[in-house]
């Protein structure tokens, strides 16, 4: 508690807000009287807002680097893993692909309702180009991010430890099932198993392909609609791929990336906050964007390409477990 006379200062740092929020959620589980649904819901809103800003800052950073290195590093070339095209649902081929890099970037860039205003906040130095981005939902962008943490982490690719650390995705081993939580819905008394932050039954019902182990692959098949997987360390590759393949993208399989280079890149980012990052990333990947309803409401407001919706649904399957966990405890 604030001790009376302390000066009321606080830095609006998205990352610290995220860690504060996660700490609150975590400590609420041990509070007397059980989890307070209302408070946790409100904290999830803050978490969502902070994450939007955090991601948009990352993109801003990426954009700035891109400005400095317009040719891109050699590392940003094609991913080394062959896209598992066979596993991708055929309908993806027909999905409209934004030909416009700027547009894609804008969508991915946390330009959600909350994000756009946050971008204008003085704390976030965003290049003017991004500020002009249309104020649309970034759902595909960051839900892709959250979602990819699930299936993307399952394979040997063990990427973006920012999202994978703590989740124990396992390297080269079994796709999902390395960490498991059991949660109980207070009302229905339904017991649900969560694996790797991924609600088992939801996952399987919507995406049969990704539930099947894919031993031969360096990474599991992508979630339907995933154009590319986002990891903080991967931003540059994403940009590079966008440039190199304006329309093609890895829809059919966008695999993710070259693990070793990604790891190196990631370490650069996470050097400052190693401990926090892994905690944040772990729970971000589970928590996704907060309650799904937040997403669906936003989605209702904007025109989402089909792939975006498919992807978010997939990604947000993981949220169910978390909400249920909150309710259960």
């Amino acid at each position, binding site marked *: 508690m604030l001790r009376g*006379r302390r000066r009321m200062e606080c830095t609006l740092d998205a990352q610290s807000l995220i860690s504060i929020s996660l700490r609150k959620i975590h400590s609420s589980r041990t509070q007397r009287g*059980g989890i307070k649904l209302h408070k946790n819901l409100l904290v999830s809103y803050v978490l969502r807002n902070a994450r939007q800003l955090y991601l948009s800052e990352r993109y801003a950073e990426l954009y700035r680097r891109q400005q400095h290195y317009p040719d891109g590093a050699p590392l940003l070339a094609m991913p080394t893993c062959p896209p598992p095209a066979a596993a991708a649902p055929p309908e993806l081929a027909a999905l409209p692909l934004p030909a416009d890099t700027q547009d894609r970037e804008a969508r991915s860039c946390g330009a959600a309702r909350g994000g756009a205003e946050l971008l204008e906040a003085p704390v976030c130095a965003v290049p003017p180009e991004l500020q002009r981005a249309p104020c649309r939902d970034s759902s595909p962008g960051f839900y892709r991010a959250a979602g990819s943490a699930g299936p993307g982490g399952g394979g040997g690719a063990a990427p973006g430890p920012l999202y994978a650390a703590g989740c124990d995705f396992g390297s080269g081993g079994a796709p999902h099932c390395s960490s498991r939580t059991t949660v109980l819905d207070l009302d229905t008394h339904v017991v649900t198993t969560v694996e790797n932050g991924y609600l088992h039954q939801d996952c399987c019902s919507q995406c049969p392909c990704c539930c099947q182990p894919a031993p031969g692959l360096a990474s599991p098949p992508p979630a339907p609609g995933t154009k590319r997987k986002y990891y903080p360390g991967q931003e540059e590759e994403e940009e590079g791929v966008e440039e190199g393949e304006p329309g093609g993208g890895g829809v059919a399989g966008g695999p993710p990336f070259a693990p070793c280079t990604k790891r190196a890149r990631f370490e650069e980012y996470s050097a400052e906050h190693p401990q926090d990052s892994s905690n944040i990333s772990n729970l971000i990947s589970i928590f996704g964007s907060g309650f799904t309803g937040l997403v669906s409401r936003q989605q209702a407001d904007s025109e989402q390409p089909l792939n975006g919706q498919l992807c978010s649904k997939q990604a947000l399957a993981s949220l169910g477990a978390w909400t249920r966990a909150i309710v259960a405890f």
Partner: protein
Amino acid sequence: MAGAGGGNDIQWCFSQVKGAVDDDVAEADIISTVEFNHSGELLATGDKGGRVVIFQQEQENKTQSHSRGEYNVYSTFQSHEPEFDYLKSLEIEEKINKIRWLPQKNAAQFLLSTNDKTIKLWKISERDKRPEGYNLKEEDGRYRDPTTVTTLRVPVFRPMDLMVEASPRRIFANAHTYHINSISINSDYETYLSADDLRINLWHLEITDRSFNIVDIKPANMEELTEVITAAEFHPNSCSTFVYSSSKGTIRLCDMRASALCDRHSKLFEEPEDPSNRSFFSEIISSISDVKFSHSGRYMMTRDYLSVKIWDLNMENRPVETYQVHEYLRSKLCSLYENDCIFDKFECCWNGSDSIVMTGSYNNFFRMFDRNTKRDITLEASRENNKPRTVLKPRKVCASGKRKKDEISVDSLDFNKKILHTAWHPKENIIAVATTNNLYIFQDKMN
């Protein structure tokens, strides 16, 4: 501020303070609810320890015509105990979330008190006579040896010291999965509602083994949860109408005649958000913490973190009046989030004539807004002004810039001292203001 009777400003005076003087507050003593009964003669408080304390106003003393009767302890009882739900491994706090009085029908008083899960109907009755002169029992209750009884007499009632007894007459349990935040007695005085985060149930005061669910906002998939119910109240006059507020800052008015399950509202009161005020914490500060109908039933008041809004039931798209309680906190939301103060649930209340509304703030300040004159005042509940009939000095918070004499700067506010619960006597200018563990009673200066 216009008084109830005339054009003069009310001058508020300290009257009494109840509770421990210690700075070290025992958690169980933290006051969690305050409520006057319908006549104003009784004032009930509930605390975190599950106790209810009722104060009774003294009859007016002819020799002390310049002040109204004092409130003295009338009854104290343990309403709720801590419980443990073994099935779900959850501890159930004994903290009293709300107390609501029933109107008096006979010599006894009745009130409803609730914790997170269970509502209880308490009967508070007086006993001032007792039977004496039993044949088979001694005065202390021990049984006499029948063989020693040689004469018979008829027991008679004799006066005794007043004893106030509280007994639980009904226990309404097992109807709420989530935490109960409100109870409200219907104007038919036979039914009442109880609301938790996701559902509202309708009870009959006589029937404890079942209740009707009238609102259920639980989504089929909890992943899709976006809002919870934060408060609910029956209309003071229309027995089929009630409102409930949400964490998203909306209020829904429902009519129970429309359907058995009132998931579809009859009216939706919502003010569009001001986009220039958007921040990380917009959702939190727009969550409504309290909703109260005016006595007339024409208006309702809502309290969110920074403001009080008055709504006309006939106009859904925006409130008719908005009062800023402590706008200077808007730039401090981040710190308030860190220390959890941003989650504080302030209540609000109307005066008897619906002309003034009151709500609490930090640093033991509370605020009153006069709807007619549009003037507002900030007062402090503090033992420093504790001479009876001392007029309270208005306080002022300096938001920024040069602090004038007697002003207090935002950074000096004590956020541990918060006034969440206040109550206004239904007829007189007497107010009860609860600080963390003390109850202050203020009256207007007479003469």
